Each structure stands twice: as C-alpha cells, then as structure tokens.
C-alpha cells in the first residue's frame, strides 16, 4: 500500500548549523505514529519543515511526498490546500495559537471558509457541530465567547475542532497535552483517540512523554540529535528497546508500581548542534560505545519485521539487556 506521507532524507540547517540530519519516515492511512525525544532532538522541526512552516533562513533539503506528490518547496497556493486541509497541526500552547480578541465563532468560521465550500448559515452550523464533536458543552451559546473564557483543556479542544475543520487525513499533534493537568490530559488523549477512530484519520503524536506515546500510537520513532535512532511497534519498543539511547530513556523513567530502583540516568547532555561529534551523536554518552562508533554515523537499518535501529552495537546492546534480565 502506498504511504499517505513519506519523508526521505529530510535535513534542516539554521544559519549553517544542522539541526535535522537526514530523517526518513513514512505513515500509512489511518496510522498513529509517535515521535519521542528530548528537547532539541528535532521532533517538531521535522514536521514544521515538511509543511514549509520554517522561516526563510532555514535551509531544508530532502523530499516530502503526500500521496506521491512532492510538497517540499511546492508553490504557496498548493501548500495552502495541504496545510489545514489535508494535514492539520495542533500545538503545545493552545492559548497562544488562538487570537484573543476574536470570538471562537469568528476563528472557527474562518478555518471552515478557507477549507470547505460552505457559506452563510451552513458555516455556523458546522462550527457548532465541531464544538459538539470535541465536547464543548452548550456549544450554541459558548461559540460567541472569547478564548480567555475557556479553561486550558477546553482551549485545546477548540484547537482540535479548528484542526478538524478541513477534514484532514493527517493530524500532527505537537505536545498537545504537555501544558495540561493529568486528569485533563487523559480527557484530551481520549478525545483524540475517539476522533481518530471515527474519522479514520492518521496522527503523528509528538511528545517527550514515553508513556503518552506508548499508549496512543501504533508505531514509535525515537529521535536523538536530529536523527531517528530507533523505530518499532509501540508495544515492542518498551518491552525490548535496542538502541542504547532508547534503553536509557526507558530506564530513566521512574516506575509507578513495583519495587523502587535507582534510576539509570544517561550521563552527560545532548551535544550542541554546532559541535556535533564525528560518528554516532550518542557515542559520547553511550556505555557501549566502541572505536568504530566515533568514525561514521550509523544509518537506520532493519533488524526484524517492522523494526529498525541506527546502531552498530545493536547486537551487543541487546545482549547487554538480556544479560541484565538474566541476572
């Protein structure tokens, strides 16, 4: 089956400093892909670059195909139909994504008028319907309210309603629940899952929270320093992570039940993009690093069905993990 969207060798540099260094990703119709990594790993930049949302000084190379058509560097008119229409995006800070001096109705109707052939009463009716879909109570009256009259969770619901206005095939959710309280986060994730099921929409969930990604995605890609280091089905990556960085991330997460153990922290910090080490970017922090790791950056290679890893020590890393389990 042809993928809905496929990204190949996508690279981004800001003022000559590479921040994204060759990302390959593809997404099937209706699939949910999780993108995890720490700040600066390039999770958000990947999608901002793919949709042509980066400022002009960013140098973007590679290829992004939507249904086989190249959209990287496509003319503005074509991108306008893609963004908000075929692919919608929601962000971490919903409050700053809405205009504070316009009513919700104005902003929702604007999105509808841009992407749908609706006019007059039909637009308003559709706006009300969307608010109902995302669970804003009393939509008929609340639609005339301003953003500040809603709570944080409700504002994110409104952002989701606006994202749905163009009937997108793909929703990019960039840390959609990071600013929200735990019980509200559960509500929003529940809503996204319901909408995805009902509309058959594909989703990319960008998050630093491994738990959020694990529970809401089919497949997970782990990013480090501008590259994908491991890609696997969601249930496998947590049970059996292969890349030392993925293992480190999971080991660093305190357990919520069972005995307490000392957290296995990854030593050091993420490398500065302007002074990237030669070879594997994770090698300076990696306990399994060997000499060849510092020579050439490993490429993402398949290791089994649906799994790929960018690590020349993948076998050793796996053995180390199994050895630990056997002890």
């Amino acid at each position, binding site marked *: 089956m042809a993928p809905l969207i496929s990204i190949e060798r996508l690279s981004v540099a800001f003022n000559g400093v590479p921040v994204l260094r060759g990302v390959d990703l593809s997404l099937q119709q209706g699939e949910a892909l999780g993108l995890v990594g720490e700040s600066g790993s390039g999770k958000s930049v990947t999608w901002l670059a793919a949709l042509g949302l980066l400022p002009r000084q960013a140098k973007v190379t590679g290829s992004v195909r939507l249904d086989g058509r190249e959209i990287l560097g496509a003319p503005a008119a074509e991108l306008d139909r893609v963004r908000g229409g075929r692919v919608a995006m929601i962000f971490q800070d919903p409050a700053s994504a809405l205009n504070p001096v316009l009513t919700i109705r104005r902003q929702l109707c604007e999105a509808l008028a841009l992407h749908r052939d609706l006019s007059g009463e039909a637009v308003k009716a559709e706006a009300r319907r969307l608010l109902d879909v995302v669970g804003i109570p009393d939509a008929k009256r609340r639609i005339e309210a301003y953003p500040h009259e809603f709570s944080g969770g409700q504002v994110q619901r409104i952002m989701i309603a606006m994202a749905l206005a163009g009937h997108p095939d793909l929703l990019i959710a960039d840390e959609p629940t990071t600013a929200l309280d735990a019980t509200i986060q*559960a509500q929003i994730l529940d809503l996204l899952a319901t909408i995805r099921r009902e509309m058959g929409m594909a989703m990319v969930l960008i998050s630093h929270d491994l738990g959020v990604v694990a*529970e809401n995605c089919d497949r997970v890609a782990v990013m480090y320093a501008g590259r994908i280091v491991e890609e696997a089905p969601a249930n496998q990556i947590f049970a059996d992570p292969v890349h030392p960085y993925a293992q480190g991330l999971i080991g660093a997460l305190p357990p919520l039940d069972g005995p307490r153990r000392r957290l296995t922290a*990854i030593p050091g910090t993420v490398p500065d993009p302007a002074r990237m080490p030669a070879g594997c970017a994770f090698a300076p922090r990696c306990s399994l690093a060997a000499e060849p790791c510092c020579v050439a950056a490993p490429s993402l290679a398949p290791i089994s069905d649906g799994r790929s890893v960018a690590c020349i020590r993948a076998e050793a890393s796996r053995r180390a993990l199994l050895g630990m389990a056997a002890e």
Partner: protein
Amino acid sequence: MTTPLVEVASISRSYSMRSGMFGRNTAVHAVDGVSLAIRKGETLGLVGESGSGKSTTGRIVLGLEPPDRGDVRFGGKPMAAPGTPAWRAQRARMQMIFQDPLGALDRRLPVAAQIREPLDIHGLGTSAEREERVRELLRAVELTPAHGVRYPGALSGGQRQRVVLARALATKPDFLVCDEPVSALDVSIQAQVVNLLCDLQAQLELTLLFISHDLRVVRQISNIVAVMYLGRIVEIGNADDLFARPEHPYTQALVSASPAPGRRSAGRIVLSGDPPNPAARPQGCAFHPRCPRAIARCAVETPVLAVVGADRQVACHLVTGPQAETRDAA
C-alpha cells in the same frame, strides 16, 4: 516516636480576587485546613493539579507567606516573627528550590558567586572557608570548578538546577522545600537530578517537602505522599502503598491517568468536567461534581480526613462512611 522536624497544624490561606472591572471581591481559599508532619530525614511528597494549593502550602511551610489560620512548627518551636535574628537563624536551616532554575539565578553573575551568596548573607565562615565551601558544594552536585566561573546562560538546564541545589545546600540546611524541581528537565536529565537529590538526602540527612504533579517522580523520592485537591488534603499515606491501592476516587483517577509504557488505555478512569476552580469551590466535597461515584451526601457534607488502615488517611464519605461498611459486608 520522636517529634517531627516540621509540623503544620491546620493552616489556611485565602486571597481576595476581583472578577471583572466592577466585580465584587471574592475569597479564593488556596489552602484550607492543611495539617502535615515530616520526620527528620524523610520526604513528604505533595501531589495535585494546578490550583490545588500545593505551592502555597510549600510557601507557608517555609515562612515566605503567613497563614491566615493555623501554625507551622520547625524543630518543635513555632516559626519566629519575620525580620528578627531568630527568624534569620531559622531561615538558614530551611531552603527552597523552584521549577525554573534560570529564573532563580542571576544571569549576570558567575554561578560560583551565587552559590557563595547565602554564606555571605548569613555570615558563615571566613573568606577562605567560603571559597572552600563553594568548591565542596560544586563537587557535591557533580559539577567542576570550571562550571563555577560560567554564567547561568552558558550552562544546560540540568546543570543550572544543580547550581540552584548547591546554593540551597550552602548553609547546611536541615529542610528543603522543592517545588517542581525537575518538571522543566528532559527525562534523561531529570533522572540525573532525582538520583542526585536522593544521594544528597541520604548523605546529609535532609528532610524534604517535595511538590510535584508528576506521580512517578514523587513516588521515586517520597516516603509519605499527600494528595491535594482544591486546597485540602484528600488522601495521605505511605508512598508505595498509596499508588498501589489508592482509596480516594480522585487519587484513583490520578493514578489511572498517569500513562504507563506497555499498557494500553483500556480501563482508564477519564474524569468528566473541568479542572477545579479555587474561586468557585463546590459545596460539600469539592471533588463531587467530577466524582464518578458521588452520592447525595457528598454534595452537602464536607468529608474530613479519617484514618483507614494502618498507614492511611482519606477524606471521602464513600471510603469512611456507612456505605463503605455495607460494601465490605457485601
């Protein structure tokens, strides 16, 4: 049993807030009758969502803000009046760590000078001793003297939080209030700081009040955990036991809402309704409008913390009321 190092007896604090330009002043009860006791060398974790009053509780315990009612005792003695020498001496024994290390540090001063500042303020040691103490503190938080000469802007987030920690430890305090100390850090760096905090606590016999919304981090570091909802403690107990067997419906929802790798969201309790608004506290049990198990009594009568089991207190009619007994019988 020894007397606790920190004792908090039914403290309350309300602020007045005006709604709209001509609106009437309304009282917001940020903290409402909170009692806590922390024994020396132990960590009490305080969890809750935004607006639950956990930070205000931390500020009152530290004496940064006076309570309207109730009192705080430190080392068996009541808190001294602010500004007095006794207060200064007491304050040197208790310190605070905030969420945003960049906001807590002066951007125009090398970090070693900032770690030294509390020593200067409290007049501890000679100049040479202070220099030595700064080197010792940098080592304790796993930084090098080379880090000391840098400015906060030249350090990473994790390194900045280590500097804040070093500064807080400068006066050899007995008690630390940590308000979301690792929430702004990436997972791998968060683990480094949590490990460091655990090590330092064991070495220095520190007593901690650890405030966070992150249940995992709180469980990792705490002996006792208190769950707050709209200014009140709704459940308190042993950390492991509380997260394994939460009794209060709100704690149950919080634990269930915490995403876990390898578990699909089946069976998750998703609360309906909005996050609580401290300015419009519901009658009766503040949680009843969102509670999936609320009964008529919950809307009328405010439940109080009651002992259930060896190591647990819960404020919920369903757990402590007659219903609970019939449930057990059935």
